[in-house]
């Protein structure tokens, strides 16, 4: 811009106006970190109601509350409020050692009693914990010194993984019992890195650093998380300097801004997949195989998602424990044509079915399905697209009435195969639509397998079987785009949680 007298006057007026309206300047030294978050926080109780199982909210919960076990950015567990954990030899008891010297945000001491109470509360069906069926595999919780023990009612090899997954939070027994559920919602306390200073429902939460945090005081003294649900507004917030960090914007916007701002795009524990329901034409293995082989995943990622995605061939991502790089489902349209021909289908006589998808729920979900339908058409598959809301998907899936093919995303932030292949493919699970007895037989024994190495190998075998018979079509692992101001360095967490205490001054 040419620096004329008129332009100088315009700039002065703009600066004065900005000052008058109190807009934050693009300060070199950020005192109060402002994050434009992509969802609202309906409730502060991380163990009950729909919010408890909403993966997007977990980052806010984890800023205030600690989970039983800490999960590191690469998804691996680490000592947190529990420093040691495990079973006895015959797997009839669990033992947990509790960290000493931790205090709640109100200054009261944290103890093993809090852990035992939190576990017992989670296992009590009356509290409305949606994951109650996991916690209720333990009973008779007892605290003694810095140890907590419980009896194993039903052995679950993943029980300690749930302690850093959904609803696995430690709440303050004495405080909660004193103030009750309603007052806890108004003034929640935890042992986490940040304390709630101010909360305006649907608007923002203002957090103050917990100076006594056992993991060390966070870098930023004050953090304001603004709930900005519209992606365009989030981009505008960070572009204008009103916010310092934001996430989940269109990849094109990320590419546009990552030069002027800090940009991090890392794979997270969320995948895109197509459920195949064992009805109609999907009972024909040739059709299923052809559907899987006719999809050029990498091209779809490159063209539609600007390259932000990782093509996958099983429901495991490279970070998950049962990931097996040797299982491959290649892009092979010729083979797909052969398989379809064997079943009497061709481009002149295509196999027809319906595919359901959301539109705008995940990045380019509808466009991806459009591209896939286009690729399918070339080999002799004619799929009719039906757009539905995500709520409808849940309802249809729970009732096992999805269309022969249905697009969905699947999160699994603990990386265990039970919470990916297990729940998605085990017939009796309300989340599975494939009910084949052969697969149920293969998966059944793995639920209670105590030998960890054998368990993981077992799940790899299941994944291989699923891929060979095309019982589901895994598409891609999502990449989460995060933009931050130049003064802030963000450490991405593979779970997808955006954690303020992992943000540092650059």
């Amino acid at each position, binding site marked *: 811009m040419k620096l004329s007298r008129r332009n100088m006057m315009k700039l002065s007026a703009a600066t004065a106006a900005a000052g008058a309206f109190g807009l934050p300047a693009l300060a070199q030294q950020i005192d109060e970190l402002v994050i434009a978050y992509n969802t609202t926080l309906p409730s502060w109780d991380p163990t009950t109601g729909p919010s408890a199982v909403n993966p997007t909210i977990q980052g806010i919960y984890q800023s205030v509350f600690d989970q039983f076990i800490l999960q590191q950015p690469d998804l691996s567990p680490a000592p947190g409020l529990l420093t040691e954990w495990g079973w006895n030899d015959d797997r009839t008891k669990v033992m947990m050692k509790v960290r000493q010297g931790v205090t709640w945000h109100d200054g009261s001491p944290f103890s093993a009693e809090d852990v035992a109470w939190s576990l017992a509360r989670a296992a009590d069906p009356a509290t409305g914990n949606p994951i109650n069926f996991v916690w209720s595999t333990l009973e008779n919780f007892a605290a003694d010194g810095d140890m907590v023990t419980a009896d194993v009612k039903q052995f679950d090899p993943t029980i300690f993984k749930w302690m850093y997954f959904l609803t696995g939070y430690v709440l303050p027994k004495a405080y909660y019992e004193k103030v009750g559920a309603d007052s806890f919602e108004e003034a929640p306390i935890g042992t986490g890195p940040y304390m709630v200073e101010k909360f305006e429902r649907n608007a923002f939460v203002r957090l103050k650093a917990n100076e006594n945090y056992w993991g060390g005081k966070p870098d930023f003294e004050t953090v304001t998380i*603004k709930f900005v649900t519209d992606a*365009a507004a989030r981009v*505008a917030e960070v572009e*204008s300097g009103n916010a310092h960090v934001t996430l989940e914007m269109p990849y094109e916007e990320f590419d546009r801004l990552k030069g002027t701002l800090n940009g991090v795009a890392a794979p997270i524990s969320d995948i895109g997949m197509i459920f195949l329901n064992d009805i109609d034409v999907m009972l024909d293995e040739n059709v299923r195989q052809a559907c899987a082989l006719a999809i050029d995943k990498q091209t779809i990622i490159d063209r539609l998602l600007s390259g932000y995605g990782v093509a996958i061939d099983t429901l495991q991502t490279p970070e998950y424990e049962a990931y097996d790089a040797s299982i491959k489902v290649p892009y092979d349209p010729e083979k797909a044509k052969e398989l379809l021909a064997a079943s009497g289908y061709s481009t002149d006589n295509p196999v027809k079915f319906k595919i359901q998808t959301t539109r705008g729920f995940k990045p380019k979900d509808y466009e991806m399905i459009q591209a896939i339908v286009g690729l399918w058409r070339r080999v002799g598959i004619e799929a009719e697209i039906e757009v539905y809301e995500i709520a409808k998907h849940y309802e249809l899936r729970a009732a096992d009435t999805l269309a022969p093919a249905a697009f969905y995303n699947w999160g699994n932030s603990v990386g265990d195969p039970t*919470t990916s292949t297990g729940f998605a493919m085990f017939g009796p699970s309300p989340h599975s639509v494939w009910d084949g007895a052969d697969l149920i037989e293969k998966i059944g024994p793995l639920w209670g397998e105590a030998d960890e190495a054998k368990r993981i190998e077992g799940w790899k075998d299941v994944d291989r079987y699923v891929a060979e018979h095309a019982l589901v079509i895994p598409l891609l692992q999502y990449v989460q785009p995060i933009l931050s101001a130049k003064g802030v360095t963000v450490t991405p967490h593979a779970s997808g949680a955006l954690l303020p205490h992992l943000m540092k001054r650059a």
Partner: protein
Amino acid sequence: MQILRSLLFRLASTAATLVGVAVIVFFVIRVVPGDPIAMMLPPGATAEDIARLTALYGLDKSIPEQFFIWASGVLQGDFGTSITARRPVLDLVLGRLPATLELSIMALVIAVILGGVAALMGTRERGTKVEAGIDVANGMALSVPDFLWALILILLFGVAWPVFHISGRVTPSLDLPFVTNFYLFESLVRLRFDLWVDIVSHMFMPALALAIPLAAIIGQLLKQSLKETMHLDYVTLARTKGYGENHVIIREALPNAILPTLTLVGVQFTFLIGGTVIIERLFSYEGLGNMAIDAVINRDLPLIQGIVILFAVLFTVVNLVVDLTYALLNPRLRHA
């Protein structure tokens, strides 16, 4: 007497409308796809878990049974508990209503000012390039939907020239001394102009986005009405008396010409409140509309019901007020 009888009739029909809305919304949201329990089902949940959660939220009963439980609660002022926020629906809805009302009223004020000025200027400069310019601007304002105006405003005054806040209702770091949720009004009453400026800088863009299409409608209708009135005998008489054009338009023509516009403003105000749903979402403004979208996404049935009922109350009350105001202002109706 006639007005009183009319008022009683309107109140009765308003009550019937609200009952109808309550019945429709209750049954429709239970019939449309989307089960709130399925929304919160974790991986691995069994049929027993589903049954337990369904019973916990009272959804295991038949729909008529649920309706009568809900309706009897409503009659006692209990609109149920939000599934997601786990708080009484009435508290949540009434807590957000002031934000939406303030935004809608501010948008209406802006629309009336912009539309009124455009109509008066267009009438005064009728037949000139100024009127043509106003018509073109009106056409543009009408043809671009409010959410697009919102994006344009965000780009202009949020990013390119950042003078207004893009999201929220007030700066989080400010300490608010308010006892009501009418922040704008209360900041004025308390003479806290620093807070007032902050609140206005948050509200201005969403209010303007809502106001622009309405301003165009007001401008067009009022100008048309004024132009018709300008040909009437009493206006001509005023001119012959030597009054200036401004006096003729504002003092003589406007009082008569404004009546149809007033009715329209009332009707449009209800649409304007409805329009806040999208605009509040775009600006992350913590009003009823934003809450409504979250409630629908999460299939929070009690909250959806509460919000729809409140919107219905607002619509009917505004329409009632407009009709009464029209009757009071229109001498033919006043003396009927």
